[in-house]
Structures are given as C-alpha cells and as structure tokens.
C-alpha cells in the first residue's frame, strides 16, 4: 500500500478496526473539502446525484440520524429513513429478510444503527449495497470516531503524539472502541479511565493505557473526551450512585486544569450534565462539543462520497 490512499478498499464501513492509517487520512482529508461545502450559500454538490441511500435505524437516534440525512442531502443523494416504529420489525421480520427486501429496491448505500454488535456485518454479507455502520451494539461507531479525529486534527493540526484521555463507561461504549482503534492507529497515546466494573476485559491489549485515576488520565492531555453514563448501568450494579460517580470521575474545572492549557473538551452526546461532566466545563471556552456535531456532517459526507461516489467521478469540492 502506498503512503497515500485514493480510495477505500471495501464496499462497506463496518468499523475502524479494518482501516489503515492511509484510509483514515483519506477520509479526514476528504472531509476537509466537504466541510467547505457546508460553508457555501448553496450547500449542495451533485456528487451522489441519482444514488439511493437508506437510513435504517433500529435504535432511537436524533443526532447521528440527522447528521447522516443532512450529509446525504448535501451530496444530492435520494435518501429515505426507516425508523424502528414504522418498520416491519415490530411484526417480527428478521434482519436478513428486511435486508433482502431493501436490497430488492437496489439502494447504493444502507446506513444502519442496531442494538446488536455485528448486525452490520450480517447486513453486509446479505446485501450488495455498501453498508455504513452508524453504531452496532457495543462494537463500533466508526463515523463518530472519524468526526472526533477530524475535530482534534482541526484544532491540533495532527493526531500523532497527542495524549487523549477518554473517561466513562468504556465497557458498553462503541464510541470508545472506535476511538481507541482510530487514535492508536494514527499514533496518539490514549488513556482510558473509568471504574473497573466498566472496563472491558483485556483493555490494555486494545493498545490503550487503562487507569482508574481520572487525574492520571487527564494530566498533560491534549484532548479530554467524556463518554455518556447511562442510568441503567447504575441499576445494573456497576457503580453505587451517580453522585459517587461524579465525585470520583466527573470532569470538573479543577481536573481539567491538569490537562494542557490548550486542551480541548469533547463529548459525543447526549450529555448528562452533572454526572460525567460539569456544565462549566461543557460550556467553557475549551469545549469543542458543538464543533464535533458540525464536523459530523462533513465526515459523513466524506464516507458516503468515498463509498458511493467512486474515484472516477468529479470530486465534490
């Protein structure tokens, strides 16, 4: 493989784990051009004109689904979204049957979110269409990691050699897995912090530095990323109370001061203010949380373009 990739190797984007550093760089570089499109008065390019994109969401999502829909429309794709309530899932149709029915309509791309890890892999084996994983269970959320990397690179100019702290529910988080793969592939040093009950087995072998001391994770960090703590985890007995969680792991201004002076604060959303992050930090000058949302559109445009646009077409920008 040459140093510069000009296309992605697969028809799908199922996870970061299968990508090379060159492919990741290609997506991020392409996203820079796409971001410029969103700044124009006419925010639309014809890159995916005549292409059909189906958004298949088996889990509720506002942010990710909206972001994909905006990205598709800005690329001029014909797009439609199927949410769980209006689909035949409630009638008990299997995922493979749903996939075959969609396939019969010959879409170019299917974007799917599903509660089961590996559901996108099942879909990719069944469909000719390119599959984009918009989050599968506790496995991966590749476009989130790409937009996080894009945001860090935009602010820091690079990924290599940076210290990135990720704190929260590491065990159940697909955002953590995708970020761990992406950032370590690109040469960043990733510190992973959370209660030991919420750390995946063998976490050190994922290439990250695990710690239960949030101060150690944050100290000297270039970027600090919180993960959402879900209330049901507390009920599952993973930790005693939200109050105690905030006391031990919550991101307070005092803890942020341990990071580099120009460190950025990130959160994939939706935030639990007062649980994993104090509002003063979330809304402070170092926060890039809304930049992440804006960059999500650009990154998703890049992914869709690279998978469905093809390298033969005129570039979008």
């Amino acid at each position: 493989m040459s140093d510069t990739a000009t296309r992605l190797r697969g028809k799908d984007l199922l996870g970061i784990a299968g990508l090379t550093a060159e492919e990741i760089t290609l997506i991020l570089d392409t996203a820079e051009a796409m971001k410029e499109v969103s700044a124009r008065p006419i925010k639309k390019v014809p890159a995916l004109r005549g292409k059909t994109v189906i958004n298949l969401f088996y889990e509720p999502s506002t942010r990710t689904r909206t972001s994909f829909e905006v990205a598709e429309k800005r690329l001029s794709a014909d797009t439609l979204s199927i949410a769980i309530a209006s689909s035949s899932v409630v009638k008990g149709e299997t995922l493979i049957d749903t996939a075959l029915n969609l396939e019969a309509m010959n879409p170019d791309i299917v974007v799917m979110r599903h509660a089961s890890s590996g559901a996108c892999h099942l879909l990719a084996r069944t469909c000719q269409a390119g599959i984009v994983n918009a989050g599968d269970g506790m496995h991966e959320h590749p476009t989130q990691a790409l937009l996080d990397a894009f945001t860090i690179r935009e602010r820091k100019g690079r990924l290599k050699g940076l210290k990135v702290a990720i704190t929260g529910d590491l065990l159940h988080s697909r955002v953590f897995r995708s970020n761990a793969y992406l950032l370590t592939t690109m040469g960043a040093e990733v510190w992973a912090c959370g209660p030991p009950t919420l750390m995946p087995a063998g976490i050190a072998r994922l290439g990250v530095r695990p710690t239960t001391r949030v101060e150690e994770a944050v100290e000297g960090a270039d970027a600090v990323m919180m993960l959402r703590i879900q209330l049901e985890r507390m009920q599952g007995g993973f930790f005693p109370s939200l109050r105690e969680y905030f006391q031990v792991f919550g991101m307070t201004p005092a803890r942020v001061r341990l990071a580099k002076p120009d460190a950025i604060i990130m959160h994939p959303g939706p935030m639990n203010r007062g649980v994993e992050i104090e509002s003063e930090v979330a809304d402070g000058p170092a926060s890039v949380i809304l930049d992440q949302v804006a960059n999500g559109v650009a990154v998703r445009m890049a992914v869709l373009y690279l998978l469905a646009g093809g390298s033969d077409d005129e570039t979008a920008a």
Partner: protein
Amino acid sequence: MRLLLRGARVVDPASGVDGARDILVEGGRIADVGVSIAPGEAAATAVVELGPSLVVCPGLVDMHVHLREPGHEHKETVITGAAAAVAGGFTAVACMPNTSPVNDSASVTRFILKQAAEANLARVYPIGAVSKGSEGKELAEMADMRLAGCVAFSDDGRPVATALLMRRALEYAGMLGVPVIDHCEDRTLVGEGVMHEGLHASQLGLRGIPSAAEEVAVHRDIVLAGLTGGHAHIAHLSAAGSLGAVRAAKARGIRVTCEVTPHHFTLTDERLLAPLMYDTNLKMNPPLREASDRDALLEGIRDGTVDAIVTDHAPHHADDKSVEFDRAAFGIVGLETAVSLGLDRLVHSGLIGLGRFVELYSAGPARLLGVAGGRLGVGDPADITILAPDLPVTVSAAAFRSKSRNTPFDAWTLRGGVAATIVGGKPLYVNPDVVQVGGLGRA
C-alpha cells in the same frame, strides 16, 4: 449369519488388545477374537478383508447429545439423531433431558426409548432430569426414571440450580449408582454473556462469559461430591481452571469426572474475528475459550484427567442461527464431525495414541454410564466402529444425516474418518469412500 472381520488393527484398550486380529460376530454378539480365525462353513459366513490400514474398535459412545424429541422435532428427532450418530461412528448416544416436555418422568423416558427402538439405529440412552421441569426446585422421580431406562441425571442446558439441590441429587443418584451430570455455570456471572470474556469479546463488543462462571460451579460440585460420596460428572468442561480443579480433586480421591467437546479442543475465541466475523455457528455454551484453555484441555486429554470426549450435539434450525449474534441460539451439531476432529487434532498431532482415543470415545463414556459396550470381549454385544485413520475427509454439512447444519466445520478437510458402524452385529453405516468395507454393505 456370521460376520468375520479380518486383518484390521484391533484397538480395544479395555481388553488390553492393540494389534492385528480377526473378529467373528454371530447372533449380534462377539463370538471370537483371535490372531487368525478360519471362516469355517464359507457359505454361512460373510468374510470382510479389512486389511491393516483400518482400525476396528469398540463402538463409540457419545454421552452428551440433544435429540430434541419430544418438542423440537424441526431441529432433530430421535430417528435423525440416531442416523447422524451411526454416520459419525457412534453406536450409542445418551440424550439430555431438555426436551419439551422435559424428560423428568418415566413416561417421557419410555417415549424416547420407543422412538429409539423404532429407529433401530444407534442405541439411545436417555438421561433424566435432576429436578422437575429442570426448574431447579424439587427432585424429579429419579428412581422411577432409572427403572424406565435412564442412565444418568442432569438439568443440562442449565446448571443444577443450588448447592442444596446438587447435594440431594448426588445423594439420591448415589443410591441408584448413576452420576449427576452438571452443566457448570454460575448464572449470575454469566449474565447476558454470549461468548468468552476476554480481549476478543471486548474487540467484538459482545457480552462476555468469564471462565470463572464455570470454575465457581465446578468447585462447588467437587466440594459436594466430597461431602456426599456421590459421582459428579462435569459436562463439557471448557476452562483451564476447571480442569485443574478436577485433576486436583481426582488426586484427593473425590468421585468427579469430566468430558470435553471436539470444538473446545479444536477452536478458540479468536475464531470469532476471522475468517467470518460474528459467525453464529461459533456461539455455544460454554463458549470457545482462549488458547491457554484449549492447551490445558489437550493436556487433560493426554494425561487422563479428561474421561470422555462428547459432542454436545445441539441441532438448531437455520432460522435460529441466521440472526444477530446476540439473538442466535447457543450450540452446534457434532455427531458427524467428532471422529475426524479427534483423529486429526488428537491422534495425528501426536498428542495421544489410538488406544487413548478409544478410551475417550468409547470405553470411558460406557464405563461412566454403566452401559454395555466400550469393549470387544467374547459375548459382548457386537457394537463395533471401524475407523479409517488416514482417510482424507472433507466435511459437508449439506450431506449430514442430522436435520440441522449448524456446524463451524463445514468444508474443513481433516485426516481420518469412519469406515463403518456396526450395532448389534448389523452394519448400519458403511462409508462408500472406503473400499475395504464394501463387503459389509452386502453382509
């Protein structure tokens, strides 16, 4: 009609035989075993010249299968399961009670035996439930089921729920002279786990089942076997820690035995990553564990800690497997791949000899269940398996006799297979790829 099998290597560790012998079968029983037996009245004796490349051994016994009847006949029936057994070289199988209804009464036991008699293929030995409905509350009518033909008791599919129930089951089964077979897992540690807890579960984002879930239960059963003097048999042991516990308990004289499946001695959890990510035919309980566990199982197979190889044959319809990984059914079929996997991975690898192979696949399980077989002595039932240890075998799930196809070994090429299976003197399976046994088809 007499049948004379000539010139093969006979491997019968229970009789201390390993060498070229002839075997004469008459009236469904072994009539003679000798270095050279004359056919006598030629017209009345079918003579099959097997030659030295084939191995004749006591019929293989699989003491852990799921035949699904009654209740789940779309997955397997006693007839199709018994047909898969003979095609896989097994002359006898013991079937677990987690049918619908559960085999927790003599009437269900008798129904299974009636179906088996109708099938008239492999011998079928029912295993009765420990508790009514396998619900883990009250003991089932074990003595009545024993009289009806049950050879052991188990709540397989679930662990024997509490230490108290296990204690009483061991005491009561001890009176009947049969083992309690326990599917060892602490359900609170299993949670909603779907694969082995470790690096690969973390990579795949699948909920893990720690080895400790099995080890905790194995330790419990060992303590209770020591307390009661009963015989605890650990089903489908998968973790290195469990194996070490069994080895140590045996050394202390505690009546504990264990079994291991071919998939656990062949595969590890890394397989879930490649070549096919999230392959639901790699989902079973207990799950495929790590290389260090697999190596420990191999050592236990070699050193005698493991008493039997079993398939845990668990047929499932494609509909139950062609779904998201965490929704898929647990279990794989094994009857028609177990011999080839054992010969390839245990014997040809140099780990064990054919004598130990026969001990694990035949003599060991027959002795544990207290059933006939496991030996080719004069007067024993003529349950005989003929192995072709060097036969190249390519697994074809589509050709299985089983109703179900849920195997991770489809299209695998292995060295060693079954040449023929003889039950009660009748050749019930003859492999068309082995020319030497062609004569059996006409016997």
